[in-house]
């Protein structure tokens, strides 16, 4: 009786659904365009005007050229190194900090937490950071993209909140059995926190994969460039033709599609991963929202 649907409610549902469908269309279309363009025939793409609804012709030439380009391959390699090593360090250090700060036995945990949280609200600025990284001797090394990003304060707090939700009794009984803090962290707390670890892997992983600014300011050696910095040259600085090995006339035309193929190659890996982790990061946001 109370759940009757009136005409106005029904029409609201329809309008809402149509609006959301439109929103989805606007959201995916740019990427669909890129995907279509990347496999299109370069000549017909250049002469095409307006919205693309399907690939124009079909050719994988752009993709073969992308993978023939040494800068892209090198960039891929550098990015992989930064993501893998970076993630390892991120997870270990964030877990250490989160675990220690979640222990009630730690007398100074409030002050220590404040010491860490303060950095979220005040920073020394870009140049002092640059001088610090330079002073530590990390400039022109891939470690400059890893060590200064070792811990993200927001992630640390998220993980600490998750650790605090684990019942104390579990740890106490482990302590009685003679387990020390390292054993408790690695054998009990971490295995029980897999959803949060998944979120951390995604957050940190995406930020390493997508970062370019630190690479731009800390690296001069082009052989160290991560993928995003190579992309920037291709997409935004118009160096596609000179850098991507388009030497003769025919391949100059290919650069049009090459740009799109490069975007695909750099973006698809992330787009394949996030939907699988979605349920976890929603849970992660929940933790952050309620107790943050």
């Amino acid at each position: 009786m109370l759940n009757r649907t009136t005409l106005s409610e029904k029409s609201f549902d329809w309008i809402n659904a149509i609006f959301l469908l439109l929103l989805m269309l606007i959201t995916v279309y740019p990427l669909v365009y890129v995907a279509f363009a990347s496999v299109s025939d370069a000549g017909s793409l250049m002469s095409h005007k307006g919205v693309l609804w399907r690939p124009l012709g079909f050719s994988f030439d752009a993709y073969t050229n992308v993978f023939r380009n040494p800068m892209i391959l090198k960039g891929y390699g550098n990015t992989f190194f930064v993501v893998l090593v970076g993630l390892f360090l991120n997870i270990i250090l964030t877990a250490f900090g989160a675990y220690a700060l979640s222990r009630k036995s730690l007398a100074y945990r409030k002050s220590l937490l404040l010491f860490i949280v303060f950095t979220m609200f005040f920073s020394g600025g870009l140049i002092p950071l640059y001088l610090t990284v330079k002073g530590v001797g990390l400039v022109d090394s891939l470690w400059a993209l890893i060590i200064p990003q070792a811990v993200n304060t927001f992630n640390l707090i998220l993980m600490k909140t998750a650790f605090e939700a684990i019942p104390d009794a579990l740890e106490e009984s482990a302590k009685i059995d003679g387990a020390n803090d390292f054993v408790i962290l690695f054998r009990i707390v971490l295995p029980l926190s897999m959803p949060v670890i998944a979120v951390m892997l995604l957050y940190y992983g995406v930020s390493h994969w997508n970062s370019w600014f630190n690479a731009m300011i800390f690296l001069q050696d082009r052989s160290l460039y991560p993928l995003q910095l190579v992309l920037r040259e291709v997409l935004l600085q118009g160096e596609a033709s000179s850098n991507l090995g388009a030497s003769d006339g025919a391949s100059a035309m290919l650069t049009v599609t090459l740009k799109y193929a490069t975007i695909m190659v750099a973006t698809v890996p992330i787009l394949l991963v996030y939907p699988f982790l979605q349920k976890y990061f929603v849970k992660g946001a929940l933790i952050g929202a309620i107790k943050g």
Partner: protein
Amino acid sequence: MPTFGIFRDIRKNKLLYVMLIPVLLYYVVFHYGPMYGAIIAFKDFSPRLGIWGSDWVGFEHFQTFFTGPYFWRTIKNTVLISLYQLVFGFPAPILLALLLNEVKQALFKRTVQTITYMPHFISLVVICGIIKDFTVSDGVVNDVIAFFGGERTTFLLEPSFFRSVYVSTGVWQHIGWGTIIFLAALTGIDQEQYEAAKIDGAGRWKQMTNVTIPGIMPTIIILLILDIGRMMNVGFEKIILLYNPGTYETADVISSYVYRVGLQDFNYSFSSAVGLFNSVINFILLICSNWLSRKFNDTSLW
């Protein structure tokens, strides 16, 4: 006895401190180190003499900035871009979350969410590459405008369009992601309140204004405080990727100016002064908005 106390605590929690050492070291070096380094804003930094050895100049760099030609330009651009972002970018995810909340089919809801999250995971470099590609005079956006009889504009070369492009693409990229936290807050609302509202004869609109919106208000306030606290911190990465000397007039914000003066012109001390000024303003803004919210809403960050 604080000194005695800390040693006793270290002895008691030896392994916890072993875990904390690398973490604290990281914060000392890469966060507090730069805070200390910021004193070069009051010095004439020369790499040869180092941070401590360089000569003090007091507030000279600040004065140069405050009286210089770029002071008002960068302040105005920073404030305007943040304000537009706050006005358009902040409510957008709340609206989307409310609309999603009305969707009853779980599969449809999930699909909308998955799709709208997507742009958040695409790198800024790619996003800006696509923006540039779509907005050139023979790009897709202009093709559509021309189709409807409009005039072609190369948006990124026009100072008058920079802020609109910046803000609208920002909404496009983050609207879906922004809904997560509000949807999470929505699931926390007590279902009994809806039942009670229904019994009182509230329709869906009344339920939304009287139960749903008050239910997520604390989340809205907290996020608003955070956003206002970050107001002067406009993401300069996107600006640096999109602007060019022709659009500096409307695009150059404090942080992009800091980057240009510091890392392109190597004017370390002056740039640090501008950066420090920005950090202090941010900090004050955050404290003020937090204070206001505690006063009027009993909700605050601390």
